[in-house]
């Protein structure tokens, strides 16, 4: 049974259709990637999944329920979290306050503190910088804050929008290790990436998006070997 089931999803900005009727699904515990060129509609798709953008058509069923009626601030309560494109850090909040914002909708204070400690174990650099304003962190550290923050909402589905964007290769490596660790803990994830090779290497399945449509899908391994994918996205 899939956790997320999207059918014929369409999204428009003004008159321009950015997502032109796509279908995809994500099973519980899966790590699925969505790759595609700039402007393909990946961010739009993710934003629609978390209610930041209203769809113009189609259905989204999450955890067995249609999400259409949910107010945008309530998606996180239903178990949908997103690490937004560009990280969306609160620069003038401290690292700790940023993490606490991730747990905003929760009231199990003791458990939150336990999980914060776990985040700090995962990202020891953040522990050292707990009381520092998040805006003063490096790009990689900010990405860690964004991921830790999203994890603190205890999502059933975690959406990651280009977590490697603008980061040095060594940091990208680190971020992908963390993605795999999080996946190993059973968190279901949808990963949007420009770095298609890395994304496909860590994922089980993948979708390829082009100009608002899904043009290919399959096992990540199969896509990695696919001629068209190799030419268009892997630079071979």
């Amino acid at each position, binding site marked *: 049974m899939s956790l997320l089931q999207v059918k014929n999803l369409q999204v428009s900005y003004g008159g321009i259709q950015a997502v032109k009727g796509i279908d995809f699904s994500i099973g519980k515990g899966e790590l699925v990637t969505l790759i595609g060129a700039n402007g393909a509609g990946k961010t739009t798709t993710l934003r629609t999944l*978390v209610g*930041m953008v209203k769809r113009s058509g189609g259905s989204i069923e999450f955890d067995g329920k249609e999400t259409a009626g949910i*107010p*945008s*601030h*309530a*998606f*996180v*309560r239903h178990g949908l*979290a*997103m690490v*937004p494109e560009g990280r*969306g850090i*609160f*620069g*003038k*909040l401290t690292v700790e*306050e940023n993490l*606490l*914002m*991730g747990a*905003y*909708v929760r009231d199990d204070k003791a458990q939150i503190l336990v999980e914060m400690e776990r985040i700090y174990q995962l990202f020891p650099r953040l522990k050292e910088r707990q009381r520092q304003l998040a805006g003063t962190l490096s790009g990689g550290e900010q990405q860690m804050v964004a991921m830790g*923050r999203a994890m603190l*909402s205890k999502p059933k589905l975690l959406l990651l929008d280009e977590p490697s964007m603008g980061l040095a290769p060594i940091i990208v490596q680190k971020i992908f290790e963390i993605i795999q660790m999080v996946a190993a803990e059973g968190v279901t994830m949808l990963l949007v990436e420009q770095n298609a090779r890395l994304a496909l290497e860590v994922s089980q399945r993948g979708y390829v998006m082009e100009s608002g449509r899904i043009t290919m899908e399959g096992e990540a391994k199969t896509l990695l070997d696919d001629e068209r994918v190799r030419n268009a996205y892997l630079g071979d």
Partner: protein
Amino acid sequence: MDTFLQQILNGLVLGSIYALIALGYTMVYGIMGLINFAHGEVVMVGAMVTISVISGLTHFGVNLPGPVLLLIGVAVAIPSCMLLGFVIERVAYRPLRGAQRLAPLITAIGLSIVLQQLAILIWGRNYIPFPPVLDHDVVTIFGASITTLQIFIIVMCFAIMVGLLVMVERTRLGRAMRATSQNPSVAGLMGVNVNTIISATFVIGSALGAIAGVMVATNYDQAHYYMGFMIGLKAFTAAVLGGIGNLGGAVAGGILLGIIESLGAGYIGSLTGGFLGSNYQDIFAFMVLILVLIFRPSGLLGEKMADRA
């Protein structure tokens, strides 16, 4: 020397009231980048409602000590103004969210005129004396005099401002307010209901405005439908002086402006050889506003405008 200390004390009274009102401007600006020019009218309504409640109670022969009457008046005025602030945001600003910046600005000015006209309908055009509920005992400090009421005003203002700062810096609501002011869409992603936060901001700012209105009216012993205009403009100046959007800046700007204005009023006569009297004290506030806008538009504690997302 006497004049100097006296004007500093006067400035402190005036300045802490400005600061209280300036916080209302700066909180709203911080959250939604909007100057709520109707805030001065909320201050006026706070004063008017208090006076009406006290007069009403006295009229119906309720025999209570003055300070208790005042307390009841304030206890009615605060929620009335909170409701007013809530309605102002819902009716005048929410429908314009996402519109060009000029639209809500014009609405704000229009709204402030509407509120003044409503005040005329309810309370008339004349100055209304504040009911004599408080004794104005005078205390002398190093030759300068201050009333017990004024001391109370300063202490209250500081207590309220500290309380507000603690709320914003230390509580979950305050954290959500700061997050919303920095990035409303990501705050929404975290589960913050941005509309609730904006309403809360207006409501809290209006409560402070109500208290400030009562302070102004007791300090000058009168209220008037137009009183919100000048005091609002000055508090706005204070907010700009401190750096609009910055809470500490609003407090610093308010106090500084109060002191500048009082010193100006105290010395303008001797500075101009008696040509201008202390009734020209208002020019100082606006000179400050103009100078700040020319030389340091981001204010004393504010960051550069370009830094705002």
